[in-house]
């Protein structure tokens, strides 16, 4: 799966040098998050995988510190002591929309969907969510404070999200009726993160040719007209000099600084490339944390009702289709375990990358200051239940006491959303539909 080309090939392909890419990387003086002594950075990542899990092979039986990981969570074994499993949290939001729509649309917003015209396989049609999602809410909080402000605030990654905007494909909301589209093309994400720098590099690399051109054209025009052209060439020279200084200064920083993610070229957005795209996106996420581009990220693998065909696991059927099979269909049951285990591996990969990356200018690793929250729109695929929504946390961003299996016995997930806000240092009296917030944040997390 890892057919990464060499760093040099990558740089050749994108025409960007380390120097240029680092123009916007963690370089002091950009006016973003201050370099001075500040409280530790806290980060949160929400990873979404679709269509419910197989609870029996997902949730630990035990409660407390002493628990065994089941098959699906096995890939996370290395991070068991940095992990929380949160069983017994229910998405109670009713109203318009089918189970999948409310599953994803209310997951991070904790509030109903508007009436609308998108009709699912059951229930009533619906539109977008009536409220902001917790990731965007926290983003706004962080951006409002110069001490926690970053270049983007939040980044929304996707993997093979269908190219249509509807209730099933959007998890993040900037506000009522304002879905945020995840970027699922890694090259587009690269452009967003490093495009400005790449353009400077590109300009610097053609300026030589350009000067030649000026000299040639100068010979073609009368001496009276040359002054304008000479002024212009002088301007080109000035830009060239400026870029050279800038690029060489930045490459000094780069030699001790941060690596730019190495994207393999020409990875098309196709089902078969899901594993590769997933890694490319995660690598860029890690890099953007190192550069402090954002402290909030979402990572949406396909969509609610997603149909990835995991041929690399020997599974030809689409995930959603399989998820409707009864538990008695042993073949489907086994495949669903494998599919969810693969999602678990993705979470583990991100945890690993974060764990092995030191916190720039801080203590420990990125993982020590980042909490990954892996979740799903359904508790179980074939019942479409939104009880016992999978919530697995890894990492130390939220200051929770990790290394435990928790069982809440059926509380509204709004309370978890409130806990997340509190964990990030921005407590709220309620989140989403206040009817479900009366009992306050979840107890026993910290």
């Amino acid at each position, binding site marked *: 799966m890892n057919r990464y080309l060499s760093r040099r090939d990558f740089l050749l392909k994108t025409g960007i040098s380390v120097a240029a890419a680092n123009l916007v990387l963690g370089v002091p003086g950009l006016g973003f998050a201050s370099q001075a002594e500040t409280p530790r950075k806290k980060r949160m990542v929400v990873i979404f995988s679709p269509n419910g899990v197989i609870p029996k092979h997902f949730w630990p039986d035990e409660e407390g510190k002493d628990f065994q990981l089941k098959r699906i969570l096995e890939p996370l074994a290395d991070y068991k002591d940095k992990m929380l499993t949160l069983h017994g949290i229910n998405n109670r939001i009713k109203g318009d929309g089918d189970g999948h729509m409310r599953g994803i649309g209310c997951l991070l917003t904790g509030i109903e969907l508007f009436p609308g015209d998108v009709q699912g396989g059951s229930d009533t049609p619906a539109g977008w969510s009536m409220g902001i999602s917790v990731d965007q809410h926290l983003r706004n909080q962080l951006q409002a404070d110069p001490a926690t402000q970053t270049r983007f605030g939040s980044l929304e990654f996707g993997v093979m999200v269908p190219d249509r905007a509807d209730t099933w494909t959007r998890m993040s909301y900037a506000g009522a009726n304002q879905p945020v589209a995840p970027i699922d093309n890694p090259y587009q994400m690269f452009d967003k993160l490093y495009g400005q720098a790449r353009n400077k590099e590109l300009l610097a690399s053609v300026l030589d040719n350009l000067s030649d051109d000026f000299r040639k054209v100068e010979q073609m025009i009368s001496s009276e007209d040359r002054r*304008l052209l000479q002024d212009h060439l002088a301007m080109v020279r000035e830009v060239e000099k400026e870029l050279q200084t800038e690029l060489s200064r930045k490459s000094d920083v780069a030699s001790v600084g941060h690596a730019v993610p190495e994207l393999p070229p020409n990875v098309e957005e196709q089902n078969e490339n899901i594993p590769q795209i997933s890694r490319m996106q995660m690598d860029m996420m890690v890099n953007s944390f190192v550069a402090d581009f954002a402290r909030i990220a979402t990572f949406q693998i396909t969509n609610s009702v997603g149909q990835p065909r995991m041929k690399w696991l020997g599974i030809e059927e689409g995930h959603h289709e399989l998820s409707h099979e009864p538990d008695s269909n042993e073949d489907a049951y086994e495949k669903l375990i494998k599919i969810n285990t693969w999602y678990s591996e993705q979470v583990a990969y991100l945890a690993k990358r974060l764990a092995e990356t030191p916190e720039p200018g801080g203590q420990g690793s990125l993982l020590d200051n980042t909490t990954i929250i892996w979740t799903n729109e359904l508790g179980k695929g074939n019942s479409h239940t939104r009880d016992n929504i999978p919530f697995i946390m890894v990492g130390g961003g939220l200051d929770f006491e990790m290394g435990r299996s928790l069982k809440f016995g059926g509380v509204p997930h709004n309370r978890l959303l409130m806990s997340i806000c509190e964990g990030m240092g921005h407590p709220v009296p309620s989140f989403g539909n206040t009817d479900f917030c009366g009992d306050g944040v979840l107890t026993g997390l910290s």
Partner: protein
Amino acid sequence: MNKTHNFRHGCVWTLCTVVAWMHTIPCIVADEAALQETPAEPPTQHSVLLERGATIYREQCASCHGDQGQGVDGLYKDRLVGDDTTGELTKLITTTMPKDEADQCVGEDAKAVAEFIHYSFYSDAAQIRNRPPRIGLARLTANQLRQSIADLYAHFDGIVGPTRDRGVKAIYFNGHRWKNEEKKIERVDPVIDFDFGRESPGEGIDAKSFYIYWEGGLKADVTGRYEIIVRSTCSFVMDFGKIGRQFFDNHVQSGDKTEFRQTVTLTAGRVYPFKIDFIQRERKTELPPAVVSLSWIPPRGVEEIIPTRQLIPYSPQATFSLQTTLPPDDRSYGYERGIAISREWDDSTTAAALEFADIAVAELWPRYQRIHKKDANENRAQLRSFLAEVVETAFRISLNDDPGDKELRQRHVDQQVDTTPDDAEAIRRVVLLALKSPRFLYPLADQTQPQSHRAANRLALVMFDSLPSDEWLQKLARQDKLKTEEQIKSAAYRMVSDYRTQAKTLALMHAWLNLDHLHDINKDQQQFPGFNDELEHDLRTSLNAFIEDTIWSDASDFRQLLLAERSYTTDRIAEFYGDAWKAESDEGPRLRMTGADGTARLGLLNHPFLMSGLAYHDSTSPIHRGVFLIRYMLGRTLRPPAEAFTPLSPDLHPDLTTRERVALQTSPEGCQVCHLKINGLGFALENYDAVGRFRTKEHSKNIDSAGRYADRSGAEVSFSGAAELARFLAESDDAHRSFVNRAFQHFVKQPPAAYGTDTLEKLTKKFRESGYNIRELIVQIAAVAAKIDNEPTTP
């Protein structure tokens, strides 16, 4: 909204200074029209006079004005240039010069000085003689850059020709998707503005489940920021600029989110394809009423349903409009010139190139690959051909096999492609290098090109502010068929009706009428209740439509701009201005023709938009109107007043009419030098009040609209009222010459004399002979500017 025009702030009279507005109007200095006035060789008698004048000038004038009239800092710093006749100068000198000692230089002495300065440096002829205009190199102006990039895109997909068809193509389906057997209605809708409620939109269509497909082209007449607004209670998706380029995605109808807005920069003279898929989906829950509309806020306008006039009922070729902001150009000569290099400008050309590169990667290259998929592709030959075509079009050349072209192709295409295996990156490199190159940015640096290429280059530059991108024009250049005047004119005739030329012509009219300074017209709400932004918008739309119709009618008669009795109106205009502005018919689009009711409608001259703009918020301003007429209509030079004046407040002189008040304030000798000319013209429009309504009385006194004008030759004309003024202007040599001069400068962006000292006279003569045909004038101007006589030089 910004209020940029000082005098219209004028809630308080004392805040308004005359000098403030005077300075907002560019002075047209180099008008070589007067060249004919002065004989090439002064006669002997004349030279005696000149010598006498020179002596007196040295002794009495030069200390303040400089030995060549160039001015002296701290004393009188302005250059002595202008278009007064020697007679007028003599009078001026006699009465005012030398300063504070006016009796020192009178009679024959004053006449001699007048003759001397007029001949030596003051007159247009003298200026041309002293410093003959030449065709100066200039970089692309902001507008030329914008247009050139739009045409570079258009080169690959073509461009829509002018059409009289208007409206939007509509196909109505029963059921929520496109199904040919369920197609119930196909028609042209004049606008998109429907409230179907919960009813069926047509026979055979289920009210609960239907689909309407709209497709059309949106015509933008001026460049600027447009806000596009769709209001829809149902699911809809809109593409804009190109079918496939999504603009609004409301695939999901959600709650009460029914308004969708996006602002976009549109480039004038282009038609933007769009389509809307509007879907009422059957649902278990209550069905909302189906309401949909397509509106816009055009630059300086207010929100309105996009009018039929701007819609074409089929989707034209894809269009690209640059979104990068470009800094404004020098306008010190009254027309835009690319003569300054700044960092801001250089950066903006980089941003523009990168923006175009992105669209080339996303749209042009995939399209090219589809069309050329059968071509050989060894060593990325397809990519190289595509990029060569980009470079050829951007540089306005044909790449051949000669060594120079090979080298150019090597540097601009192959070397860049070989640098990177990634196609997108190669395209970015080539586009950046090409669009930053002087070969693109300096269209007149083309001396090494064959005659026909240079002619095509100039035709596109003059007519479209752009580069030759149309296949037929490029072909004529390649075949070397743009050498003779006939060949060039025949191409120009083909180009003159193009929407790009139409847009450039509309911009000419706006410059000629100085309309850029007339926006945000505020009027005293007690005196003129109902004069609001909406009315102003309608008036502007009416004026533009009138201009467009007049110029693109068969006669294309300049005089009709000043004489036509019919115009365009809306119900809102009729409500404010009364029956004279009632539409001919009650039915039809919002903007409809008024009747020729025989009252005093005189084309644009007394159009309420112009009259309102050239007035204060509560009273008329004969000075503004006079300055406008003398500078813009008659093309004469005026100096700013020597010091700033605050207009007299009407409250202090309640018994005086505006005319009397202006006459009183401008009565001093020093004022009269200019105000004799200004007032004489402005007073003739006194029958039109501050909002352009006809009046016969002011404060129970009868309006006196008698006026006068002394033309370039010194001949005196008098008239009474707007109708006589209009007839005078329509037949005035000064007005014709001024219009031709302005048109030439606007289209060519060079002074006419740079193409021969008699260019302006020749063109004005042809203009007259053609029955003042504006279209014909544009063709003649293009022919002058595009005719290349010399062979290409070798570098």
